[in-house]
């Protein structure tokens, strides 16, 4: 699936992606460009924050601002960016290892703060950049270089976690469906609050899941109620099918709105007090 050249020109940097041919992450990049194009975003008003992994190289392939942070630490950086400048459109890109292994705690706290940003979770069921070890989303059937006898840990389902943590928009998509994915990403960006897009993005080099997922994925039923949290938890945790679409959507005050209201309360309490005033109060 191709992006219009105009869109590509606008959002694609001249750095050639280092991903393997056929990698699922290409689909996500394309879909992201499409979503940006559809929303007419200015590249310089977008900040893409990534961790470390194949997925982590994402920002530099775009013309947006990027922050290639540390393994697992996208969320603290995003929080800081939003605290400094709430007007920016913030996209976080994390691998499954990034998000659920080393970065699991920041992920929880970002959700519970309902920061207005979009989290693209590029899930390939393993650690790709370090060449194929088990991750928290490694499938029970999978053996990896680090789990030659199979894993002794249970699969972790990110959508259900995000819902319980307090994320207000939770969707799942498949990188092979770039157009659908682009649509979901656009909706996620428009959603006020924390939006997770869990993307099945196969690693063709270490564990090619294209065929597996093509069989397993299924679109949410027509009459699905996106606002029912416990229903969403059920669909999210279903491992027979991987349901695609928007699993959950609700509206709660965002982090940015709450910060604003705290600023107002503080202004009320302290009026126009200056630093000079405060210092003067400390005069003997």
């Amino acid at each position: 699936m191709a992006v219009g050249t105009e869109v590509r020109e606008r959002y694609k940097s001249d750095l050639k992606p280092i991903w393997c041919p056929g990698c699922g992450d290409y689909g996500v990049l394309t879909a992201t460009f499409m979503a940006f194009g559809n929303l007419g975003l200015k590249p310089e008003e977008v900040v893409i924050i990534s961790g470390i992994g194949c997925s982590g190289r994402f920002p530099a392939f775009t013309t947006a601002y990027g922050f290639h942070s540390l393994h697992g630490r996208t969320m603290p950086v995003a929080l800081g960016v939003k605290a400094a400048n709430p007007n920016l459109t913030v996209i976080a890109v994390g691998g499954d290892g990034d998000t659920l292994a080393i970065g699991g705690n920041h992920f929880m706290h970002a959700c519970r703060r309902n920061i207005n940003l979009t989290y693209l979770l590029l899930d390939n069921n393993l650690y790709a950049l370090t060449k194929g070890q088990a991750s928290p989303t490694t499938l029970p059937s999978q053996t990896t270089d680090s789990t030659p006898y199979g894993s002794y840990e249970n699969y972790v389902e990110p959508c259900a976690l995000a819902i319980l943590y307090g994320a207000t928009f939770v969707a799942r998509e498949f990188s092979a469906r770039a157009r659908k994915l682009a649509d979901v990403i656009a909706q996620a960006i428009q959603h006020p609050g924390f939006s997770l897009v869990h993307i099945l993005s196969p690693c063709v080099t270490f564990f090619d899941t294209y065929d597996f997922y093509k069989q397993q994925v299924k679109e949410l039923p027509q009459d699905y109620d996106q606002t029912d949290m416990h229903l969403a938890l059920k669909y999210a945790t279903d491992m027979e099918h991987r349901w695609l679409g928007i699993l959950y959507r609700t509206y709660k005050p965002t982090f940015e709105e709450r910060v604003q209201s705290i600023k107002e309360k503080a202004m009320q309490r302290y009026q126009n007090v200056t630093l000079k005033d405060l210092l003067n109060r400390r005069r003997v």
Partner: protein
Amino acid sequence: MPVNEFVIRVGGDTLEGGIIRTGEFLAHALARCGLEVFTFRTYPAEIKGGQAMIQVRTAEQPTYTHGDEVDILICFDEEAWEIHKQDFNPYGVLIYDSKFEPKNVPGTSITYGLPFSEIAKTRLRNPLGKNMVILGAFSALFGLPKETFEQLIREYWGRRGEKVVNANIAALNEGFDEARKFEKHDPYRIEVRPMSDRMILSGNEAICYGAIAAGCKVFAGYPITPASDILEWMMEHLPHFGGTPLQVEDEIAAIGAVLGASFAGAKAMTATSGPGLSLMTEFLSHAAMAEIPCVIADIQRAGPSTGMPTKSEQSDLYQAVFGGHGDVPRVVLAPSTVQGCFYVTVHAFNLAELCQLPVIILSDQSLAHRTETIAPIDLDKLIVIDREVYDSFIHSGDDKGYRRYRLDETGISPMSLPGQVGSYTAEGLEHDEFGHPNWDPENHMTMTEKRFRKLELALRYGEYYPGFEGFRWYGPRQADVGVITWGSTAGAVREASKLAELEGISVAILHVSMLYPLHKEIVRRFIISMKRVLLPELNYTGQFAHLVRGETGLDVVSYAKVTGVPFKVREILEAIRELAHEVIYVR
């Protein structure tokens, strides 16, 4: 000296309540008498219960320490006496709750036993009023005007209503009247002096004010003793200065949020103590690589590990200077006074923004929570530096586009801010001028040099912005004994060297505030100009001594102590004497 120049200490179990407040009231009242004060406090390990103490030194001129020996000791209970008697001046005054009888009191001292608890409980039916009873007694015994205390009571409890104020004034009067029954035998007296204009602040408060003065707009932190009060102050005050304070899930998140905020254009800071500083190590290395300005205040406590959270130490220096994988440029500054906490914080932001790197402030528990009277801070005279922001007009002419990591002479490259034209990726991988990952051997060498070249500017910073002294040389250009000092130990060193001079010892001091990068040439010159050089510090491994040797290749005598409490003046005096003796001996 018995008039206006002595040391008071108040000790007791915190279950009784009010120990620290008694000292704070005393300090404020003495300051209002036109005197200088310098306090020090220690807390128990327990949340409730356990011995706490506060020491208040008063003098007509500013002092540098809280004093070695206690002239007036106020004990709430017997345990307090047992703990504090070792520091008690045998010619001093002991005031105690007469519910107990202190043992082994030196015959040379004067004692006043007063039934504080009794008075508060039965006469006033206000057990919590005990500390006011004591202050009343203090007023009667030493001539500190009772009105000063009354005024403070009104200011402190005014918001709680007339009833509370009156109850406390009643307690004050009761103590005053009770103490007047004593015949005064001791020589200590307060004489009111003309008021000069001063402030009274703690080290941590000064850091908060400094941050605001420097333009801090985002603060992120996680509670930890003894840095939590900085977080709490920021949570309360940063919002009304238009900034955003964040209490985050851990210290890794704190430094991460600081870097994100700084990347997005806000001056940003975090404050922590040893365990938190350790957790920030990986991001410290990232800040250096991606060249993101940030300020980390580390309020040191006794380590290693959880250690002794309420005790003081200077043992995070190694971590501050050397922590981080790879070659990590950073600046490390250490204040040594409350006033220093303010100015060092301002300069920390300036250096961070100027050089686009992490700046670590090394304070410590004793400095954080002591209060001092200090000269008023003149905000109008402050120098505040902002980072050089990329401007596509000014910096244009670069046909290949914006180069975030442009190889300029100083190593500093203009920084573009999200929202404006000039997007780039802040990169933790090694990269070229554009920020594109690049692993060429020569590029890594060039970029590493670039990152360290910025430290040269940091070294020269004080020359350009004279408000900041990276070092200060006190005393003669050549001497028998030189003392190199840093951080909160500097106060004791200055007092000790004055005493040593009085004894006829030739002594000079090099007080270093910029610990890293080190002014090598100055330190070298100091060391070779002195017959022997002493370096006292509150850690076991002699961390700054090691750094000085490592940077200069010259030797110094390390005097290391780890007891969780600051050096006494006399300990350092003793060490100076010993070195002076050796010098004479080898002559």
